[in-house]
């Protein structure tokens, strides 16, 4: 039922002059869900997030956040949102704790309560030992965790995370994921954008793939793989004879569901990878290397949004 959705959009559009950033999307996010926007740069993810965060006015369409109208009730909605923006905007001259207490005051939290929440949240994001230190010397991962803590300081009903782990090293990313997973377990509704497939698979119950301002697919990570890819993928590398992988692809035609020749390898999409490999050998082809793996969201993503580089 739409009334119970935390976010409900119908034909949502955002235009900047002639440029259409978001081109008529529909979506519903239910309480307790971890919902992801997946898409290449420029797909319209951040523009959508800014409209949900009530700092950008929709050009057309209908949008309800927490059952309210973001244009009329923006301030009241924002009081119940936690926002972790793509670019860090911590106060570098304030201490780690002051960044949280100062921010809590914007939501009308009392000073004593702000201090209590700050200490609790610093514990949660494992920064208690840095509480009185400055923000500047913190690593990228620590700053991100502090920004996530800051987004929780008003005990929000809905947390928006715009590319929460972009630019972090693997250890830092895993720590952020682990903390976000804890939030999810507590029942916090998370909405995040990402262009990392592993992030989407790790965190999202349900996601939409955006491309060119439109939603091109929707579902759970598992369902998306089932609908838009095969169970397995065979990666073949050839080193003999023929000039291009396209020529190999022609010889592989009919094996599996789909053949995708890349410059360095040929991908064979098949539900049974081993059977596909057997068929490759039966056709007299001798690839230099064969790898059978499970399909991932990355395969779905590249299939849906293409391999052309978007800058």
């Amino acid at each position, binding site marked *: 039922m739409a009334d119970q959705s935390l976010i409900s959009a119908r034909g949502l559009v955002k235009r900047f002059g002639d440029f259409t950033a978001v081109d008529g999307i529909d979506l519903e996010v239910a309480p307790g869900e971890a919902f992801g926007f997946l898409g290449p740069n420029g797909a319209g993810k951040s523009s959508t997030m800014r409209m949900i965060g009530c700092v950008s006015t929709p050009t057309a369409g209908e949008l309800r956040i927490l059952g309210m109208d973001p244009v009329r009730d923006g301030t009241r909605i924002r009081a119940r949102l936690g*926002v972790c923006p793509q670019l860090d905007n911590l106060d570098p001259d304030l201490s780690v704790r002051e960044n949280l207490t100062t921010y809590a005051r914007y939501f*009308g939290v009392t000073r004593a309560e702000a201090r209590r929440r700050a200490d609790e949240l610093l514990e949660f994001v494992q920064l208690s030992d840095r509480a009185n230190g400055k923000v500047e010397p913190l690593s990228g991962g620590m700053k991100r965790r502090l920004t996530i803590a800051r987004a929780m300081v008003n005990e929000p009903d809905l947390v928006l995370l715009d590319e929460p782990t972009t630019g972090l090293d693997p250890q830092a990313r895993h720590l952020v994921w682990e903390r976000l997973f804890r939030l999810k377990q507590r029942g916090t509704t998370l909405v995040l954008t990402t262009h990392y497939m592993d992030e989407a698979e790790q965190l999202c119950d349900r996601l939409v793939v955006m491309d060119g301002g439109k939603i091109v697919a929707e579902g759970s990570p598992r369902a998306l793989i089932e609908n838009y890819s095969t169970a397995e993928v065979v990666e073949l590398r050839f080193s003999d004879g023929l000039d291009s992988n396209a020529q190999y692809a022609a010889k592989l035609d009919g094996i599996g569901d789909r053949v995708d020749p890349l410059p360095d390898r040929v991908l064979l999409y098949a539900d049974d990878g081993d059977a596909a490999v057997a068929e490759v050998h039966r056709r007299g082809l001798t690839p230099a290397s064969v790898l059978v793996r499970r399909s991932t969201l990355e395969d779905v993503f590249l299939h849906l949004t293409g391999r052309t580089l978007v800058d």
Partner: protein
Amino acid sequence: MTTETTTVTGAGDPRPLRLRPVVAVVERYLTLYRRLWQASVFSSFILPILFLISIGIGVGGYVGSIEGVDYLSWIVPGVLVSTAFQICVGESTYPVLGDFKWVRAYHAMRAAPVQPKDIVHGHLLYMIFRVQLSIVAFLLVVVFFGGLHSPWALATLPICALLTAAVVTPVTAFAATIESDSYFALLFRFVVIPATLFSGVFFPVEQLPVAIRPVAYASPVWHAVELSRAATLGRAPSWPIVVHIGYLLLWAVIGLLAARRAFARRLED
């Protein structure tokens, strides 16, 4: 029962002053100031005293008296107001652009239930506090130099509060509009320096050629200097008090509207 009215524009709550978020914005500035105040002591306190000593006593030895008082006493209100002016400009240029572009603190506030105009109001209130603090310290020192001739000298506090509003708001609006800090060089060269030199700080504007005098009359600094000089010397200003105050108020009101508009434009789309 609370009756809250809302507008259909992005501006949100139409009440002119929403206290809670404004107080929170002021608190952030005060927390920052508590950490960084030492850096401002030289420019907002020691430097003006050095000015008074070198120009007031040094140059004053040659000038003797001016308009019936010793030169030091004559320039005290000028240096006082120009100090207030410098603090206002200094704190409304780089720090404001920085909070948009580099720190992005205003974006952080905007994601919370703080509206653009709350930020403008909070910054202005903090600036009034900052300037008042410097003026009090300055007056305490100057009283020992024998630079104050009337209890009306206390009126320099509200005068400088009004000047703060007249200067901070348009400069803030400017800082919120530009993309690059190189525009500040233009502001300093073509506005701040002339306003300091030709606003009756070091000599009466009547010394200026008639053609240049309107520059002084147009500057809010001159009106604040005239009022302050009248206060510290205990005499009437050159123009009716209402005109001086009205002119400063005009700058404050137009500046405030411009700043609110510039902040809203920059933080909303």
